[in-house]
């Protein structure tokens, strides 16, 4: 007997609860959440632009595999980067966010995923998680990531872990300097302070694949472009 047989291919995340489903990478196609995410990121960008005076320095290269690596000092950081990018770039971005902070509860996962384009990174089991990403990334042909190598708003020095894995996997590493977000929404304050100035500086791609050199270059870039009181200059 000839003829094609039906081949069922169930989605691999059927058993996962919603928070885990929203946090997975690569994402499974989902008409509802993909539409909500498209609306959510636009709404977040409009909101951010309405609340703050924004300065943008530098350019973002149009390459298939890009890792944006900003300094981290405020809850506004992700929105700041997303708000200054055009939609055709913004929709490519996956923000890696701490699973223990953003993806433990359903409401947090929905907010992080829909407004912040977030996927979960398990910093509690960092070594295993880094191995998982090291296996996964070579299979990803195109994708933009936004990661915070410092891992916390209270620390400036970058960890070399995921940044190094991305660099090794062939991702173009782009340093991003965020200035003013710490003043616009300081750590510990319940709400942001509107109408402050926020500056986003996109640097030149870092070529090195050595993780220590990468960390050192990122730190140097953030120290040059991470505060508003520093003189504004072009990226280097």
């Amino acid at each position: 007997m000839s003829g094609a047989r039906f081949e069922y291919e169930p989605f691999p995340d059927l058993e996962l609860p919603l928070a885990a489903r929203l946090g997975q990478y690569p994402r499974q196609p989902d008409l509802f959440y993909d539409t909500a995410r498209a609306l959510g990121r636009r709404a977040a960008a409009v909101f951010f632009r309405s609340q703050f005076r924004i300065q943008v320095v530098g350019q973002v290269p149009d390459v298939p595999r890009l890792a944006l690596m900003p300094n981290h000092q405020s809850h506004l950081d992700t929105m700041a980067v997303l708000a200054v990018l055009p939609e055709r770039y913004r929709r490519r971005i996956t923000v890696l966010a701490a699973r223990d902070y953003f993806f433990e509860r359903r409401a947090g996962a929905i907010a992080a995923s829909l407004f912040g384009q977030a996927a979960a990174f398990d910093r509690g089991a960092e070594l295993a998680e880094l191995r998982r990403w090291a296996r996964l990334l070579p299979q990803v042909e195109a994708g933009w990531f936004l990661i915070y190598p410092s891992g916390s708003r209270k620390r400036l020095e970058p960890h070399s872990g995921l940044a190094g894995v991305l660099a090794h996997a062939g991702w173009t590493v782009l340093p991003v300097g965020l200035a003013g977000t710490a003043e616009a929404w300081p750590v510990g304050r319940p709400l942001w302070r509107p109408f402050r100035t926020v500056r986003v500086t996109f640097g030149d791609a870092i070529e090195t694949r050595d993780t220590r050199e990468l960390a050192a270059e990122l730190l140097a870039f953030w120290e040059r472009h991470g505060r508003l009181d520093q003189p504004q200059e072009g990226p280097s």
Partner: protein
Amino acid sequence: MASVQPMLGCVWPARALGVMPEVGVGLDELTGDPLRFYTVAAVVTVVVTTGLLAVLRIPGAWIPLRTWFLILPIALGAIWLGQGAWTVLVAVVSILAFKEYARVTGLYRQPLFVVLVYGAVITENFFAFVGRYDVFMAIPTWAVLALALVPIVLRRTEGMLQWFALSVVGVVFFAYFLAHLSYLYASSLGLGYLLFVLLMTQLNDALQFIYGKAFGRHRWTPISPNKTVEGSLLAGVTIVVLTFLQAAIAFPWVPPLGVLAAGLIVTIGGQVGDLTMANVKRNAGVKDFGSILPGHGGLTDRLNSLMVTAPAFAHFMGYLFGGFPS
């Protein structure tokens, strides 16, 4: 339409169920209003079941029961709110259930097919709400024709027969069949039809499970290995007896043979729906359609029986006794 002759003096089932009149609510008023009666009956059933489980300590039974604490207020609350709220609930639940089905079969990777089935769900429920039976019956035809256009528009052949066939099943079961739950609300003969088919179908599922656990020895189908001859037969007998007990409240104009048929439709139709969707799961190699309802699985696991009982019951009653908009 056949003449409606309510059976008189049939309030004893409510007494047998132990439904006591609340302050300001007489027993006659309670039993004369299906919505009030079934709401009280559902609450009593849940309370009694909770008590029984507390005494019997059946392992694993608490989780599905806890989920019923969520399902019942939402379903009955929407019915109490009115036809609009109920129709919206049926449409939303149908869309979510279809999404589960599409994710299990892989159809969800074909957005054009999926969007067309969503459209069929929404329009079916809308025309059930406005009471246009002619359009309600015509929508599946137009939906299938629209689905047939997809491979032509996309100019693709590979896998298209599979996606088309799975989408047609989606239109029939999740749009057309499930929309009969909205249509039953539109009956001019009251809410007895809807409440009967809704609650008895769910009870039938629960009884098959409970009887099967307690007395089941002989499995009768490889499609659903948990189904037993004893569980199915005992649930069937119980449902038919309960149908006779509540016929005076749900549909007092129906003669005994019709009541018997109504009970059989619920118990046999429920199993047909259950097995139809179980077949989908077995083919796809999954245990449940989802995990949104703890202890039950997905919405489709809860709705599968209703997919058959609702249309079968509605057309049976509509054909014999009328009462639906045309």
